[in-house]
């Protein structure tokens, strides 16, 4: 919302020395954030009114003249091509450093002193278009003649144009809880309280009926839409333009002047914050107003010229047959005030905030009025607003008369919704603020904001909340504390350090595990951490043959890309990886995040509700693809095993029957703790490579970190170092393809207790190895913790091992 400083000055004295910057800072620190301040005449900086003293021809150009221009403090030489230059003429003189629109077109450019065809020019005499003041009537090459402004040479142009105002831009979000600050009076009150200045809001006389010519009636049929409706009829209206001052004032806050009647209602809205509407009385049958809900398929044309079919059940203002306005949002074209309107009915009402917001949302029509009603306005305000608008119209439309008494429906309700007087205890104030404030100071702060001290006791006050703050904003004692604290100044409250227990906080196994997994993968296996959205698309689900109905669906997705919640991190990661593999030879990624599984039990929806949210376990998923690696399963398995070892979880990896359709049936294992599956390692089934545009085979693993947490052991296991040297031997063998690596190593370990370490270093298939066989090579380490082994002992152990391998693994030892 835009606030005019000149307008604020009507209600509160702002000392001259208080700069707009200080006002910005003060309001930001004590009331609400001011986004920016703009000076009205900013565009005319470094521009003055100049008086042409001399016009001479230019030696090198027929169409240019060299002028001597009185700029007040000095006289400047200006080269100008204006067709209407004359001695004694007052002109808009742009000095170097000012910003003008060159020939009235394009971006603003900054002027500098220059030479034009060899003659020095110390500025520019402007055409109207060059300073954004063109009316369209100007001749080509005509400079702006300001001779009608009888100001001395050197007068700043902004001042000469009467543009001295400063505008304050308030962030609307910062005042959602402050219905009172949606008008200038409310903002002035804040500023007055900050600066210690009294408010002077002009008295509005009661409405007096001149002649009862119109029998105005109003009936509220939908009290959930409208709790109070106040209106009055006026006669002998002549609709014309508003006087200059009002038009200017409305323009200054961004409202387009329309005609004197509409402008008066808008003026009151920007003054008090009460939206109003003026109807042409001719359009209202029998002058009987009905506030009701819209019926099915009801139509109307709103003021913006749009024909609308109304959603059933929104609030409307109507007569017997027609909709006249959408309650709290916008009027209709048929009943608007036009040039030949002579009788009007003016409305000021209290529309329900929620109902108004719902209607505005349903219509996709947000207006200045609906924005205010949504904030829960002061229910005592409509009658004051009517009195104020009548006062303005009587003043600005000579001959106009009040043609009905003020109709006030539902006024008895207003008291019930206002906050009752509140107690403010000085002890509680001190306890929450952490600082002692003298009671007199507390009282004067509250009074400056319009609170009334009903009773003063030793221990505190009984405070009457002003109606404009009493709708919601101020409802409990803590709210009063905020009022006192913000005006006292938050910077006056000394920082303190709480006394608290030094007991270490309970640990969170899941978060610790997440961090250890991250470090294990990034530091230990050179994986890069990525993030993908929790949402996925129908397209991705279909590509992966996933059942959309098994996925939690978003009711109001942002786009087709984000319709469902992921059950696995893998699909979104694969989409990312397929893009990355277009430019990379190798991708090794992981993500840690939550998956959403509605068929499993998550946290309770509410304490003791017995209903549960979808399970939201934290998973880690890793994806590996390397150009030329035809079995990325191995790298994925290695990373998964490293993660599990880092966490110290005792797991088994073995083939699984529980295949997801994206798992490669011959290249997958499940990770189990006991009998419980907590994850899997696999290669992507080749059928999905094409669908995802993958050229390379992809290995992946998924581990349910949440499920692992109870099995994580805290520490590594330590074995004392042997005092005796170990003996190392290498062993190579050929085994049938179906014999598993793990089986081979187990057979070796079990064959002789002196074998303490087995490490595979090569697998080979091909020449010199028969088909369906593979050659395996191992480093073996033998050791006894009590003595040094002899060569003969090691040979004997090796013999036992090879014998076992031959027997149990069908192995042929290679020399």
């Amino acid at each position, binding site marked *: 919302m835009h606030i005019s400083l000149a307008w604020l000055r009507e209600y509160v004295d702002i000392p001259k020395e208080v700069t707009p910057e200080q006002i910005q800072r003060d309001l*930001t*620190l*004590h009331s*609400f*954030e001011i986004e920016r301040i703009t000076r009205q005449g900013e565009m005319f900086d470094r521009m003055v009114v100049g008086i042409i003293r001399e016009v001479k021809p230019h030696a090198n150009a027929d169409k240019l003249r060299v002028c001597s221009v009185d700029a007040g403090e000095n006289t400047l030489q200006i080269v100008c091509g204006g067709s209407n230059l004359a001695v004694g003429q007052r002109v808009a003189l742009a000095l170097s450093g000012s910003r003008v629109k060159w020939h009235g077109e394009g971006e603003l450019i900054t002027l500098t002193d220059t030479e034009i065809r060899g003659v020095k020019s110390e500025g520019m005499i402007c055409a109207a278009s060059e300073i954004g003041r063109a009316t369209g009537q100007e001749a080509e090459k005509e400079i702006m003649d300001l001779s009608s402004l009888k100001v001395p040479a050197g007068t700043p142009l902004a001042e000469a144009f009467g543009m001295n105002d400063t505008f304050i831009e308030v962030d609307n979000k910062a005042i*959602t*809880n*402050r219905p009172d600050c949606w008008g200038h009076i409310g903002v002035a009150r804040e500023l007055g309280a900050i600066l210690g200045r009294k408010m002077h809001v002009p008295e509005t006389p009661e409405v007096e009926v001149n002649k009862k010519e119109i029998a105005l009636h109003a009936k509220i049929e939908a009290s959930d839409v409208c709790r109070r409706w106040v209106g009055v009829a006026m006669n002998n209206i002549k609709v014309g333009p508003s006087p200059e001052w009002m038009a200017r004032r409305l323009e200054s806050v961004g409202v387009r002047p329309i005609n004197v009647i509409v402008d008066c209602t808008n003026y009151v809205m920007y003054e008090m914050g009460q939206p109003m509407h003026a109807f042409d009385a001719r359009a209202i049958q029998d002058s009987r107003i009905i506030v009701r809900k819209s019926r099915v398929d009801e139509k109307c044309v709103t003021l913006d010229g749009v024909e609308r079919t109304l959603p059933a059940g929104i609030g409307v203002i109507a007569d017997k047959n027609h909709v006249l306005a959408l309650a709290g949002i916008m009027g209709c074209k048929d009943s608007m005030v036009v040039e030949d309107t002579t009788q009007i009915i003016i409305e000021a009402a209290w529309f329900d*905030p*929620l109902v108004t917001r719902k209607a505005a949302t349903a219509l996709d029509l947000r207006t200045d009025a609906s924005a205010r009603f*949504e904030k829960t306005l002061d229910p005592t305000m409509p009658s004051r607003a009517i009195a104020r608008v009548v006062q303005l119209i009587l003043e600005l439309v000579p001959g106009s008369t009040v043609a009905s008494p003020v109709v006030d429906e539902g006024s008895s309700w207003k008291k019930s919704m206002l906050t009752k007087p509140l107690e403010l205890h000085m002890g509680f104030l001190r*306890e*929450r*603020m*952490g600082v002692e404030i003298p009671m007199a100071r507390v009282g004067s702060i509250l009074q400056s904001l319009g609170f009334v001290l009903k009773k003063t006791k030793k221990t505190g006050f009984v405070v009457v909340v002003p109606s404009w703050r009493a709708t919601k904003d101020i409802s*409990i004692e*803590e709210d009063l*504390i*905020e009022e006192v*604290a*913000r005006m006292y100044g*938050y*910077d006056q*409250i000394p920082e*303190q*350090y*709480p006394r*608290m*227990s030094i*007991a*270490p*906080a309970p640990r*969170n196994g*899941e*978060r610790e595990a997440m961090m250890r997994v991250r*470090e294990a993968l*990034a*530091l230990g296996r*050179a994986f*890069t*951490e*990525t*993030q993908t959205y*929790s949402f996925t698309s129908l397209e991705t689900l279909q590509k992966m043959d996933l059942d959309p109905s098994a996925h*939690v*669906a978003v*009711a*109001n997705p*942002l786009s087709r890309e984000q319709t469902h919640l992921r059950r696995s991190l893998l699909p979104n*990661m694969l989409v990312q*990886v397929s*893009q*990355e593999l277009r430019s990379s030879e190798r991708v090794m990624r992981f993500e840690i*995040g939550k998956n*959403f599984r509605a068929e499993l039990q*998550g946290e309770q*929806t*509410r304490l003791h509700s017995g209903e549960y*949210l979808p399970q*939201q376990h934290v998973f880690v998923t890793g994806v590996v693809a390397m150009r030329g690696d035809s079995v990325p399963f191995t790298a994925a398995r290695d990373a998964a095993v490293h993660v599990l070892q880092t966490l110290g979880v005792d797991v088994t990896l073995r083939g699984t029957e529980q295949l997801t359709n994206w798992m490669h049936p011959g290249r997958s294992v499940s990770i189990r703790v006991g009998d419980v599956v907590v994850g899997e390692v696999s290669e992507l089934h080749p059928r999905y490579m094409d669908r995802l545009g993958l050229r390379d085979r992809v290995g992946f693993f998924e581990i349910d970190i949440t499920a692992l947490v109870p099995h994580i052991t805290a520490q590594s296991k330590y074995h004392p170092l042997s005092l005796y040297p170990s003996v190392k031997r290498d062993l190579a063998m050929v085994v049938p393809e179906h014999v598993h690596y793990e089986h081979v190593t187990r057979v070796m370990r079990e064959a002789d207790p002196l074998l303490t370490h087995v490490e595979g270093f090569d697998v080979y298939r091909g020449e010199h190895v028969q088909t369906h066989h593979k050659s395996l090579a191992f480093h073996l380490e033998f050791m006894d913790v009590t003595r040094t082994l002899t060569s003969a002992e090691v040979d004997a152990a090796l013999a036992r091992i090879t014998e076992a391998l031959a027997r149990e693994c069908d192995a042929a030892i290679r020399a």
Partner: protein
Amino acid sequence: MQQDSEQLQKDAHRDITNAANLDAIAAVRLAYLGRKGKLAAAQQDLASLSPEERKAAGIAFNEVKSGIERALEHRERELQDAQWDSIKESERIDTTQPFFPAREAGHLHPNTLVQRDLEEVAASMGFMVVDGPELDTDYYTFESLNIPKTHPARDAQDTFYIEGHPDWCMRSHVSNMQVRLLQQYGAPLRVAYPGRVFRNEATDASHEHTFYQFEALVVDKGLTIGHLVGVIKSLLRGLFHKDIEVRLRPGYFPFVEPGFEMDMSCLLCMGRGCAVCKRSGWVELLGCGLVHPRVLKEAGLDPRQWSGIAFGMGLTRLVMMRYGIEDIRLLMSGEERFLKQF
């Protein structure tokens, strides 16, 4: 005899001095101290002397021998050191050449890096660090936080709702944890909860529908606005490793009363005013306040007995500030060129 050993000593010193390299010195050593060397021969001559003469000559001989040994060692060390001096040139390499092929390290997401810092500081201040449901009920996300359906603040919260469960939503802030945690752990409580949140708003360089927040909650007896400032400043000191100047101004969040926005002195211009802080010297940092009595009541606590402070900030915004990331969308883009910079 005396003259012989003097001559021997002179010859030896001359030969040692003249030895130009380690090979030459080895030859000299052999020539004098070897089994068939000159000293061995001289020692044999001693046998022909009378016992008295032999004693004196023996002492002189031993002195000569040890003198030669010392001279040899000295010269050897000299020659060896000279050799080390030469490797400066003879073994010189190009120290700017990297290891081939390049070895890759892994990378943590920038969000993780900042979150880890925040968690560590919070933990060191005695805060428990937790997370909770990202898909939560309207009750924990709004209702329990004094944001009823009629509340205008709902306008600002562009929330994703769940099909078939009108009272479920994707949390639009991590404050959904407040009442849940108080119900679970009771008071007093010190807890921090970073996490992923969702807003139904169009994405551009500065808006994402998915981002991260960090919030902390303290519930205890007698907490004041002063405590709020003290606790936040301590956390900032831990995070930025220096004192950070802050200021409070009124801010509106329905679940705190009073509510504040906290600005910190712009770290780029040190408060003098620059483009980043829009020349104000201050940068918006977080929202905070004293926990609203209705929230405490909702959590089963007596607001006259207990009080709370809460503060929450955009973790993602902090990440962007720390690294100067200009486009928020990069964080979720999966761009390798982006991820590998951290």
